[in-house]
């Protein structure tokens, strides 16, 4: 079942482009990663989905219903975690969550359990919370009404690694229970950890839509080698034949190998090696390489 579908969704702010001809389909139970640099159009897309702004052209459906005008009832089924958390400063965490529960007409809420899980003191006012604690409060608030679709905009900024890990576990658990998750981020490792599919947006246009494994360059490996022989050996052993962009930093030669790994390794291993690390490039590195300078990945 389709939870979200956009068709040629376009948003202009005056003459400035927000997003252009965005076509997306997200299925129930999917964790979808939406990645792109700052200003690419991620937040514009989310604000359109949350009905905070209206499209210039194109259309979108949520839970099978086309949204031409504001439909507040649909929002009962959506949880939203904005990138910047701005709650009423004078309220305590508990008061804020109780207000949220009332606005969503929830009969009972398990506020204390959530607070315990994320280690949040609900007796303090929002004003006194650190950025991380505000984020925790916003996470609880977005999940309190058990939404079917959870929209997360840069969810982990400000969270410490332990809470991040707990939060990811929580998301996986909710997803296993059927929750669909739309995750917008520029921290690509989050996408690697969680997402089934990923959409890449740049300058308002969707430029790639695939599974994480199918992202361009995912077969690439980085081989970092420390030879027994000291110094920069790139010219001496013609390493450019293995990788024309081979780098040498602090005694380590770094080779980017696109394919035929066994041949490259054989060539690399022709000289005595004191240490070797073979790793997959992070999505950050791939993103910069394939999308960062406006190149077409194909």
């Amino acid at each position, binding site marked *: 079942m389709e939870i979200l579908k956009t068709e040629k969704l376009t948003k202009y702010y005056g003459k400035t482009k927000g997003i252009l001809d965005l076509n997306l389909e997200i299925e129930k139970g999917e964790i979808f990663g939406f990645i792109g640099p700052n200003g690419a159009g991620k937040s514009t897309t989310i604000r359109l989905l949350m009905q905070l702004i209206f499209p210039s052209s194109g259309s979108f459906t949520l839970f099978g219903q086309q949204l031409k005008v504001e439909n507040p009832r*649909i929002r009962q089924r959506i949880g939203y975690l904005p990138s910047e958390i701005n709650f009423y400063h004078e309220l305590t965490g508990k008061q804020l969550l109780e207000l949220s529960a009332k606005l969503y007409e929830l009969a009972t809420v398990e506020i204390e359990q959530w607070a315990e899980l994320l280690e949040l003191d609900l007796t303090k006012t929002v004003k006194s919370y650190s950025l991380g604690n505000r984020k925790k409060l916003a996470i609880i608030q977005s999940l309190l009404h058990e939404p079917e679709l959870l929209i997360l905009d840069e969810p982990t900024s400000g969270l410490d690694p332990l809470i991040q890990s707990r939060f990811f576990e929580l998301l996986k658990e909710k997803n296993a229970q059927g929750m669909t998750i739309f995750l917008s981020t520029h921290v690509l490792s989050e996408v690697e950890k969680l997402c089934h599919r990923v959409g890449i947006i740049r300058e308002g246009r969707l430029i790639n839509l695939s599974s994480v494994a199918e992202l361009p360059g995912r077969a690439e490996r980085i081989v970092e080698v420390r030879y027994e022989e000291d110094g920069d050996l790139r010219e001496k052993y013609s390493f450019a034949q293995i990788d024309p962009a081979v780098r040498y930093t602090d005694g380590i030669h770094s080779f980017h190998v696109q394919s035929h790994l066994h041949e490259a390794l054989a060539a690399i291993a022709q000289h005595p090696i004191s240490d070797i690390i073979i790793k997959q490039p992070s999505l950050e590195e791939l993103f910069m390489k394939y999308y960062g300078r406006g190149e077409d990945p194909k």
Partner: protein
Amino acid sequence: MKSLNLTRHELFLGKKNLLTWTLIIAGLMIMFVSTTTLIIDNAEMAELIEGFPQALLDSFNINVESFTTFEGWMASEPYVFFVLLLASFAVALASTSISREIDQGTGEFLFVTPHSRRNIFWSKAGADFLQISFVFLIGTAVTFAVGSTIVSITNPTGLFLVFLSAYLTALATAGIGYVLSCLIDNQRTALALGVGFVLLSFLFKSLAGMGGILSNLAKLSIFQLFDLFAILDNHALSFSSLATSLGIYIIGLVVGSEILARKNLNL
């Protein structure tokens, strides 16, 4: 039920502000009422006032003849301060009701809840209405309560209607405030324009006694809607004044609500 929750939330957030304004207005009215015995039938005061320029006297509704009764005194300078403060309170509430949510980013919490923008707007307006009414009632009640311990109030209906006219004027300024709040995303700008409108209106009213083109400007003032001494004499509000003040309030509400329903919320 959902709307009631929103209204309660607004009242909860505004309770300190409400208390402050109530204390200021009630305190001011107590101060004015306490001076009643110094003002009424004070020949020296009457002589002094006769020497003031007419334009200045008009600005503050000061009329020598009205200084013979408690009601007449209350309809002069005390009324001017009462209506100015009440209107400022009303316009401050209204002009920041939506702009504050957008400017401070709290709208990203509020406008994604399962409430329509119109519902949110009217719930906020409901809370504002209750607060403006509360301040008006306390200010009026204090005036009557303290006044009756000092003098005999011979025209209570007329006096109440005078204060009611201040309330209606305040509601009209709130109507202007709602349009500003929904048009302008910056809270301070909306507030400055709202309060600026009240002060400019008062300035235009002050120019009424200057004659010529300046007296025509006074017709634009929202503070010229009601003829206070006619209210005291007739024990009634004129229909046109009543309809105009309520009309501005209601049109402001409807226009504000429709602007909000259609605009992009740039949070």
